[in-house]
């Protein structure tokens, strides 16, 4: 199947409107303020994205309150959110929506489309099956009334701090847990990336509802993780593009030695090389969401490829951004460090590039030694 890797006109219009909204509501100062606050995310911005505009449920069917668009549109929003390092639990909610869609959990999807945050309750580095997918041991027992109870800890969960419902893998099954349930405690983690902070979950007989078990649970979880890896690539792409754009803009206006710093050839060549990588990142990121959206048999490979390429690219773009800004790029006041931290946390989320390359060894039939 030949997938279309371009943006549609509608997607470009969507991008423009999201970028305008984020320019107004998620500028540097605001993001830095939220990141430095005890709040895990920007509740106002989330309300705008979910309740006010419905962008948080773009790929949820219309009859469930969503916009009925595809993951290709969702990915465009993620590019813009990455560009703004916006502190909102958009990615986790989107992955949760994918899980719930696979499971046909219409009621939860309606809640989600209504603005409720629903998050997958897994360590942020768990990716599609492979050596990176280490799920913590959460024990499942049974209450007197026969309903399931969960016990255990899950560390380093993203996008869950303000979630209303957690979708938790445990004992080979999937459960929904009310985040405010007695027996569940969320502890905020001081995170490298405070624009997507982590929290730890601890459960002592936390009441849960079984969503699916066995093969059905495994395949839903797997599909959602593939979608997560694919979608994250678009966020990384947007982040890298911001870093390149901002660096170029800085170097055009910053003068040293009587000339714009951007006229120095060594920097020009490094930025040209970065652009070459970015051009390719756009192709692989679009390919990944197109393959996932189309249910292409290559979707798993496409997602692994996207993470293997886009994860390191975003880190490199952010590193060059810091370095080429010189001292100013190393200050707290300049946003470059927020991008650096997000890029690094994103390079680990849903599996590192090394994990995805290991997955590709199987997918591309390149067996190890």
């Amino acid at each position, binding site marked *: 199947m*030949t997938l*279309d*890797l*371009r943006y549609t006109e509608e997607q470009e219009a969507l991008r423009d409107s999201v970028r305008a909204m984020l320019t107004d509501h998620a500028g540097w100062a605001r993001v830095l303020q939220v990141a430095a606050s005890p709040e895990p995310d920007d509740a106002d911005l989330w309300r705008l994205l979910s309740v006010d505009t419905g962008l948080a449920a773009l790929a949820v069917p219309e009859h469930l309150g969503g916009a009925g668009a595809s993951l290709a549109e969702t990915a465009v929003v993620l590019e813009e959110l990455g560009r703004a390092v916006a502190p909102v639990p958009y990615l986790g909610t989107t992955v949760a929506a994918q899980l719930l869609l696979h499971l046909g959990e219409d009621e939860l999807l309606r809640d989600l489309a209504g603005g409720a945050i629903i998050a997958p309750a897994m360590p942020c580095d768990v990716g599609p099956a492979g050596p990176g997918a280490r799920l913590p041991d959460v024990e499942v027992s049974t209450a007197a009334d026969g309903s399931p109870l969960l016990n255990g800890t899950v560390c380093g969960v993203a996008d869950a701090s303000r979630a209303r419902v957690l979708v938790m893998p445990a004992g080979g099954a999937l459960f929904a847990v009310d985040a405010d349930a007695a027996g569940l405690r969320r502890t905020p983690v001081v995170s490298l990336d405070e624009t997507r902070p982590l929290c730890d979950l601890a459960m002592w007989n936390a009441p849960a509802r079984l969503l699916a078990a066995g093969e059905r649970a495994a395949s839903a979880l797997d599909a959602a993780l593939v979608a997560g890896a694919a979608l994250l690539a678009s966020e990384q792409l947007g982040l890298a593009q911001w870093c*390149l754009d901002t660096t*170029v803009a800085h*170097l*055009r206006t910053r003068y040293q030695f009587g*000339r*714009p710093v*951007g*006229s*120095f*050839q060594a*920097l*020009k*060549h490094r*930025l*040209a*090389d970065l*652009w*070459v990588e970015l*051009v*390719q*990142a*756009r*192709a*692989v990121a*679009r*390919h990944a969401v197109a393959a996932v959206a189309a249910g292409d048999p290559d979707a798993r490979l496409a997602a692994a*490829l996207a993470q*293997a*390429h886009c994860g390191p690219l975003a880190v490199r773009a952010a590193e060059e951004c810091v370095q080429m800004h010189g001292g100013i790029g190393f200050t707290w006041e300049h946003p470059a460090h927020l991008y650096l931290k997000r890029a690094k946390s994103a390079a680990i989320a849903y599996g590192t590039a*090394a994990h995805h*390359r*290991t997955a*590709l*060894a199987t997918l*591309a*039939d*390149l*067996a*190890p*030694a």
Partner: protein
Amino acid sequence: MTAESLRERVDGFLAGHDTAQDRLEFLRARFDAGLAWVHYPAGLGGLGAPRVLQPVVDQRFAAAGAPDNSPRRIGIGLGMAAPTILRHGTAEQRARFLRPLWTAEEVWCQLFSEPGAGSDLAGVATRAVRDGDGWLVDGQKVWTSMAHQARWGILLARTDPAAPKHAGLTYFLCDMHAPGVEVRPLRQATGEAEFNEVFLSGVRLDDGLRLGAVGEGWAVARTTLMNERVAIGGAALPREGGMIGVLARTWRTRPELRTPALHDEVLRLWVRAEALRLTGIRLRQQLAAGEPGPEGSAMKLAFAALTQQISGTEVELLGAEGLRHDHWRADRPEELDLTGRGPTYRWLRAKGNSIEGGTSEVLRNIVAERVLGLPAEPRTDTGVAWKDLPR
């Protein structure tokens, strides 16, 4: 003009022309029917149709088993000489040159680079001096592929050394059969001689072979160079279609060579190759939709680096076996096959990918300035008479 109407036109042409007839006759007739390059004007092999429809025509002819004009052999004519003649040529020049160019009766070569003017093409030293109603040309060109087969060359020469470098150039169509043109094979690191040196000693060119005005050579050459950079090879490759496929097959079929460290390296290269392939697909989709972008430069830069690394890893993977070469004969290959011959050939030949057709350094400058909009470096050579420049 629609794809459907073009298909009908081709079918009509095929109904009247036997694909088994004389090859040249067939190609001339196809040209005269406007079915050569459909975006060219009527009367010059085209129909003024959108360029994106060309594949429709080519595929139809290919499906009918029609002879082609050996496009790889005449690549410089098709890709560089023709669009320049079309844009800057007189009516006579277009009428004289385009038809035999397209039918491959006349092979073209490019006489631009010189030993002293590579990246800095506007610095060429080859002199063209007025001689009655013509010109006398003296100088040396280098890296000229197909010069030994060429009937004509596109030539950039200096007509006014006292003018600043870009202003003193004039563009000519050089008769490669004229007295004083000497073509010598230029042997390269692979041992072969794909390219030539061309020595021009008192070569007389009629003024009718001048393309564009005297002193306007740089503007004309820019048309040529733009077209060089627009060109992207034919169809998109399938996955593992290029050099990565060779490495992957070696990896799969020779388990005894594998090591964990090389495994990750092979995977990294596979990722980069697939990323580049998808980039090419996306670029073609954009071009087909009439949205050309600057991504072609990215592809050339990435391609050069990637082929060098893949072939380097292949040699290393093979160990002592990888150090065996097939031969060092000074062959004169006409078609370049980057994945052909053995691993050492591939590795050596790939070193040329970042030099030929614009070095990677020049391409990075172009990307930085034209795509990213970064400022140019201070220039010290643009306001000075060419003859006074340090060299």
